[in-house]
């Protein structure tokens, strides 16, 4: 929760500073995120690899727990594609790219801006990036606060699935509380598989 606030503050401070920025500063700022992005991806990988429980978890994997992430991916992408019927300004692939964030708002929005820029220009790319940021922040909030509701109406897996990538960190306490402790390994594996799928899916849909 504290991290979410800092994220929103940083973003808001950036917007505030941006309104005073000249063209020189803003062109510079369009180039910089690419290198920060590479730095981020390496750190995410290092963090996954250095995770002390990674090995133990790999041994513990059951076939059915490997399947849940794919249910999450297919469900999210199908409904996101359907959202393009409501949103006339974006096509199906744009909507699926936003959905592919799985509540990983920071990485997904930046990836979308980077990858869309080449084909549609920075203007449209930033618009979709901003939508991705907002949509995935909203998803995280819905996952955090709705967990008890989802667990009682849609079964134990629902809070894991809705949490997306956050099933392995931010939403884990809520999942363990409302779905039960035996769901925790499933939730962590779910988060890891989705974390790997975010860059893959986004680059696929932004082509």
């Amino acid at each position, binding site marked *: 929760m504290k991290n979410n606030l800092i994220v929103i503050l940083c973003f808001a401070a950036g*917007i505030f500073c941006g309104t005073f920025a000249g063209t020189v500063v803003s062109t510079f700022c369009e180039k910089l995120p690419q290198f920060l992005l590479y730095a981020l991806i390496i750190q995410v*990988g*290092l963090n*996954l690899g250095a995770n002390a429980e990674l090995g133990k978890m790999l041994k513990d994997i059951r076939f059915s727990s490997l399947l*849940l992430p794919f249910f999450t991916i297919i469900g999210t992408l199908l409904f996101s594609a359907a959202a393009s019927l409501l949103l006339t300004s974006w096509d199906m692939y744009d909507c699926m790219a936003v959905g592919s964030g799985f509540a990983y708002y920071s990485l997904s929005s930046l990836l979308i801006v980077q990858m869309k820029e080449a084909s549609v220009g920075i203007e449209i790319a930033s618009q979709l990036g901003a939508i991705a940021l907002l949509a995935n922040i909203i998803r995280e909030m819905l996952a955090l606060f709705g967990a008890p509701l989802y667990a009682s109406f849609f079964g134990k897996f629902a809070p894991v699935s809705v949490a997306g990538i956050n099933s392995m960190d931010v939403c884990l306490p809520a999942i363990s509380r409302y779905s039960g402790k035996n769901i925790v390994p499933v939730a962590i594996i779910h988060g890891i598989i989705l974390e790997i799928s975010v860059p893959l899916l986004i680059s696929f849909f932004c082509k």
Partner: protein
Amino acid sequence: MFIILGLLGLGISAGYLFRHVPVFKRLEHSISYTIFAMLFIFGITIGANQSLLNNIGEFGIQAAILAICGVSGSLVASFIAYKLFIKKGGINEK
């Protein structure tokens, strides 16, 4: 895309090799700081873009629609998964 995947793979293997080096236990913080910096810069790009700022309300609504669709899709899919795995006596019988 291949750069991203390559870096991710490189990171995972390097992280696994050096998993006992204490510095790697503190990566969560450096990840957060990198994200803060990126979002600040992303914010500047958005703030400098007048036409985007004028439409922020519209984008908020579009984002909410996409978020609700994503969550609904996950709910339906996880419900199906739950029913399937229960029948097969999967995770839930642990």
